[in-house]
């Protein structure tokens, strides 16, 4: 949208532009991420120094707590429990939600019938779903993960449905004419068009799931970061809460930088890069 080099330069002086070399390996993202995190820590440290408050400990204190919790093994255990729940719920929610979303987006009739259900499930408070799940299926791991998935599925459906509605019909027509098999259609026609929607649903999905997992753990599990955070919340130990939170964020960040971004760069390399 930047029109900086539009042809509206008033002076008729000759325009010159040199070829720019594009060196975008892995070094650049890593360096930029490091700089970014450093800047964040600095900002945080400054802010914590300016408004000292028990509710806002400086980074070093959080780091100390983090090390302590890690040394005691608690951090590892609870983090692992939470990660496993997040991963399981994520897989269930993305698979079920994507399939439902794409189907609804393609079938106008079904969509207008099921839309009210979708609105209902979208707006059911996590508390309600979680409590009902625990009541019906017992205080089990399956109930916990199921409840989280049910909370997230409507969000995935809504996003993927928009994607399916925005599909370009010409590609589907080409596929029909050349009789691509169903698998080929999905793999080569459908999935690439839905990729940005999937990425959006996926990113905000993981975050939402993790937040609901926290509630699930608070309401009826005996392990996990949510359980710990709540424990520390009761004694108002914000440094410990942040330590657990940041440990999870660090893992998410590592996944993002080492796995998701390279994959995404690869999946979207066909897009014309803006000059």
């Amino acid at each position, binding site marked *: 949208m930047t029109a900086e080099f539009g042809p509206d330069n008033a002076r008729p002086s000759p325009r010159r532009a040199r070829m720019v070399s594009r060196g975008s390996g892995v070094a650049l993202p890593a360096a930029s991420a490091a700089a970014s995190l450093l800047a964040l820590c600095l900002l945080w440290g400054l802010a914590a120094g300016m408004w000292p408050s*028990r*509710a806002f400990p400086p980074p070093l204190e959080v780091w100390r707590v983090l090390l302590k919790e890690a040394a005691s093994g608690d951090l590892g255990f609870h983090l692992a429990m939470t990660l496993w729940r997040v991963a399981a719920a994520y897989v269930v929610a993305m698979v079920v939600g994507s399939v439902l979303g794409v189907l609804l987006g393609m079938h106008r009739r079904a969509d207008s019938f099921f839309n009210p259900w979708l609105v209902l499930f979208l707006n059911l408070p996590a508390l309600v779903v979680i*409590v009902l799940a*625990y*009541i019906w299926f*017992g*205080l089990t791991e399956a109930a916990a993960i199921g409840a989280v998935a049910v909370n997230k599925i409507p969000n995935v459906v809504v996003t993927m449905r928009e994607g399916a509605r925005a599909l370009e019909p010409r590609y589907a027509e080409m596929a029909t004419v050349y009789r691509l098999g169903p698998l080929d259609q999905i793999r080569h026609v459908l999935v690439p068009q839905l990729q940005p929607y999937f990425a959006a649903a996926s990113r905000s999905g993981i975050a939402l799931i993790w937040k609901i997992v926290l509630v699930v753990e*608070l*309401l*009826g*599990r*005996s392990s996990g970061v949510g*359980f710990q955070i*709540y*424990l520390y*919340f*009761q*004694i*108002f*130990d914000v440094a410990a809460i942040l330590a657990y939170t940041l440990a999870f964020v660090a893992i998410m960040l590592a996944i993002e930088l080492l796995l998701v971004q390279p994959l995404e760069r690869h999946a979207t390399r066909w897009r014309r890069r803006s000059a």
Partner: protein
Amino acid sequence: ASPSAPKIRVGVLKFGTVNWELDTIKHNKFDAANGIEVEVVYFAGEDATNVAMLAGDLDVIVSDWLWVSRQRSEGEDLTLAPYSTAVGAIMVKNVSPIRGIPDLVGKKIGVAGGSLDKSWLLIQGLARRDHGIDLGKEGDVVFGAPPLLSEKALSGELDAVLNFWHFCARLEANGFRRLIGADDAAKALGASGPVSALGYVFREKWADENPDAAMSFVKASAQAKKLLDESDAEWRRLAPVVRAEGGELEVLRDRYREGIPKRPLAEEERDAAKLYEILAELGGEKLVGEARQMAPGTFWAALKT
């Protein structure tokens, strides 16, 4: 209340037990009689009142002395006046074969309030000392939200449940019996009498600046307690606030009356300090932070005279 009467903002759970007492104060105008005006601010959760207190939005909340001590040792100038000695208990069904702590081994136990809950620590401590049982490891422990655990106990999914006292009272009215209370455990571990688990919590600075108002509030509270102790009619009036009827209301009433603190403050403070040491042992740094002793001034000094 006269318009000039000092206002005291008290934060409570709308359906919590403290509200019964505050409702009695308001309804019988005990606050006006003592020259203050109590303003009740409702919250949906205990944590909400804690946050509100730390955010400086309230004058008084109800919380437990351990929390106050910990906050004090970290620099907050909170202090407390005893409110109730009622504590949680492990409840089992009347027909349950569980008769004592050793029977809990291998059973599914629901625990409200998390692994650092005071009652849970005390009962664990007792089990270890008297029976050599580590309940945390030898029982199948499930932590969870109090209402959910109550429901699960009723439906039979849990063999035993350690819950807050009013949940216990309601269970009692629905075919449950007390296996062991946290107060029993405290006594067994060395307390000389019931210690107020909960107290009205306020800032010392506020109390110093408004000594009359603070004292009047304590008096109004005492008057309300007296009325609730003596009048069954008052309880009938309170029934919609308590949200209980018949047998359930009676059990709640009786347990409430049992929980009214009757001992001099100094005695309570001494026992609390002792319990603190025990708890510091059981819960470790996680529970109490770096302070190995109860913070001096946790109990409001002005009440000792």
